[in-house]
């Protein structure tokens, strides 16, 4: 399945399915940009009805199923291996004890595959390793080891290519971020109390988001069982938005930069906010996460791949600094983030651990300000290179990075949402053209809810890249990006 289809299907599945149960919460959540507030109406989770309370809850505290998890991990490894070996006859898929020995004996090598393959396909595969455990009763932390094990197994024994450090890190860390995000998104879509066609569509939607979980539910006969929904399937707050609009990227200036970075065209964007950040950050990992997916038109992408952006940010833990324990107003928080960004101007991706301070001030039912100041560490990051180009498709430098991220959000609930941010990341290149890259820039976004459902918005982002090469001329790139969009909120925001 292509990445574009995946994003689109996932987006529609989540968007369609969350509307029902969450509308019933009658929560007036802040739509955008970050759900850091919990309002009076959504201070409790969805109440469990008396009838539902009498139902069994097999999903509430499942026991880990080690045998199932290992079997599914092996199936996830075997499918691409067998397909490429037998169906496509690829020499790299012809594994023998000799290739295992060679992979164990020799040094690892960075691989030169295209950006989409290395920065999306590998993390997506890691998500399947993660969910081999997660969808079999393991906790987040219990499942977090599985993509590391699965990736190491694949790199050393699943293919004859030399093990690649970029594949290992992207698959493992990206697999955790995408895996838990998709696990929780599929939980939102599922409803064990639903029946009839609604139940069918929910199960299909959840299976698209999390195929391993869908497979488990199918073979265990859980797809039509009536039982309780575990409380964590219904977070305190969920808000999605589906926007369509126009994107323009300008060539704002570049030195020695030969590419055509300017483009314009349509795009589709999906955003999902799961859980209330400040309230959930001290809870379980990814109780709060936010995901953004963007697909550009062929024209907007200058005929390149349509998936132009995918980012998943989830909480790992936090400490309340101010406010009451249940609803802190200031926290120190830690996150795991997956990033994929590929448009004519930007090629950037990586896996990062980030942390810092988050605060909220003001009245959530009226005007409030939310602030973030985070630092980030990227064990693996990739940024477009001006000189390192392989004909296997790689045109980016790999390295390790440090970054800083500041965000100010002003909300006039429920009508106006304003975002002002600045990001800066510095990469030390480990493989590719000998270089250091600094990328970042400021961004501003305004979204106005015309009705509870319909919103209009505009975003400006001034992307910069400063690349310093050891043996080649330096390159400074400046590419302003402008977005204009209309979108729907799912469910609708607070009553007007």
């Amino acid at each position: 399945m292509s990445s574009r289809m995946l994003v689109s299907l996932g987006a529609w599945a989540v968007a369609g399915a969350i509307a029902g149960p969450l509308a019933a919460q009658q929560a007036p959540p802040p739509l955008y940009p970050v759900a850091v507030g919990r309002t009076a109406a959504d201070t409790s989770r969805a109440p469990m009805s008396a009838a539902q309370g009498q139902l069994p809850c097999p999903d509430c505290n499942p026991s880990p199923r080690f045998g199932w998890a290992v079997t599914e991990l092996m199936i996830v490894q075997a499918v691409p291996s067998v397909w490429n070996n037998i169906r496509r006859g690829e020499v790299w898929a012809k594994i023998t004890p000799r290739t295992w020995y060679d992979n164990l004996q020799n040094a690892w090598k960075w691989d030169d595959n295209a950006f989409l393959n290395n920065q999306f396909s590998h993390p997506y595969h890691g998500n399947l390793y993660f969910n081999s455990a997660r969808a079999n009763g393991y906790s987040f932390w219990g499942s977090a080891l599985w993509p590391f094990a699965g990736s190491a197994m694949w790199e050393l024994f699943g293919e004859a290519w030399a093990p690649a450090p970029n594949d290992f890190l992207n698959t493992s860390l990206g697999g955790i971020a995408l895996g838990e995000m998709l696990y929780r998104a599929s939980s939102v879509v599922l409803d064990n109390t639903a029946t009839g066609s609604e139940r069918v569509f929910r199960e299909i939607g959840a299976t698209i988001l999390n195929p391993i979980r869908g497979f488990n539910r199918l073979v265990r006969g859980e797809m039509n069982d009536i039982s309780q929904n575990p409380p964590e399937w219904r977070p305190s707050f969920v808000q999605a938005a589906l926007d369509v609009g126009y994107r323009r990227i300008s060539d704002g200036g570049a030195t020695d930069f030969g590419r055509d970075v300017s483009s314009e065209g349509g795009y589709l964007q999906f955003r999902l906010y799961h859980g209330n950040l400040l309230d959930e950050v001290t809870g379980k990992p990814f109780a709060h996460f936010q995901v953004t997916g963007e697909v550009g038109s062929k024209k907007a992408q200058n005929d390149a791949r349509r998936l132009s952006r995918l980012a998943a940010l989830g909480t790992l833990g936090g400490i309340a600094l101010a406010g009451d324990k249940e609803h802190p107003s200031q926290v120190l928080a830690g996150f795991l983030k997956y990033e994929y960004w590929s448009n004519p101007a930007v090629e950037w991706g990586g896996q990062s651990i980030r942390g810092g301070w988050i605060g909220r001030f003001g009245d959530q039912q009226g005007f409030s300000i939310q602030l973030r100041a985070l630092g980030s560490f990227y064990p693996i990051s990739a940024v477009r290179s001006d000189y390192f180009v392989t004909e296997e498709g790689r045109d980016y430098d790999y390295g390790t990075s440090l970054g800083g991220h500041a965000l100010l959000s002003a909300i006039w609930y429920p009508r106006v949402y304003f975002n002002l941010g600045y990001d800066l990341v510095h990469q030390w290149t480990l493989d590719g053209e000998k270089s250091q890259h600094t990328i970042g820039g400021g961004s501003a976004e305004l979204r106005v809810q015309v009705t509870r459902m319909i919103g209009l918005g505009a975003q400006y982002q001034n992307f910069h890249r400063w690349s310093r090469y050891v043996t080649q001329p330096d390159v400074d790139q400046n590419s302003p990006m402008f977005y204009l969009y209309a979108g729907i909120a799912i469910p609708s925001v607070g009553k007007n």
Partner: protein
Amino acid sequence: MRYVSTLLGLGAAIVLALGCQEPAKPALGPENNLTVVNQQDTFSLAIDELKNVYTELSYTWANSEPHARIFHCSFLPHGEALVVVTDAAGDTVYDRELLYRLEGITAEGVPGNWTVFLGIYGGVGAYVDFLLDATADTVVSGALMKDVCEARGR
């Protein structure tokens, strides 16, 4: 006792000398089935079953054209294989690592006797294989790469 000490000292010296010596770097053997086809305007080279091979090979190749298409069909997961092509004037017209699937073209050079150099350093893999063809169209599309490699049994 003196005799034993001398023997022990000599033994230690031999062990030290052997220990400090660089291990022998395996060169090509008959099992590697080196196959070179060196004709006017076409040149190809193939080596099979490389197990930690270190070697440098150089050939003079008669090329009547200013360009040559090059097709990489190599599977060498470990180590490195470099191909360097120089024209009749001694200028380098192509220099890069051999890859699994790659179609390229040399820079413009002076026709005549060109030199094809292949260096393999710690190569471990199923095969190294490449083809230089000066009669082919100079427009590199990538379309021929798969056919060329499959025709060569790769």
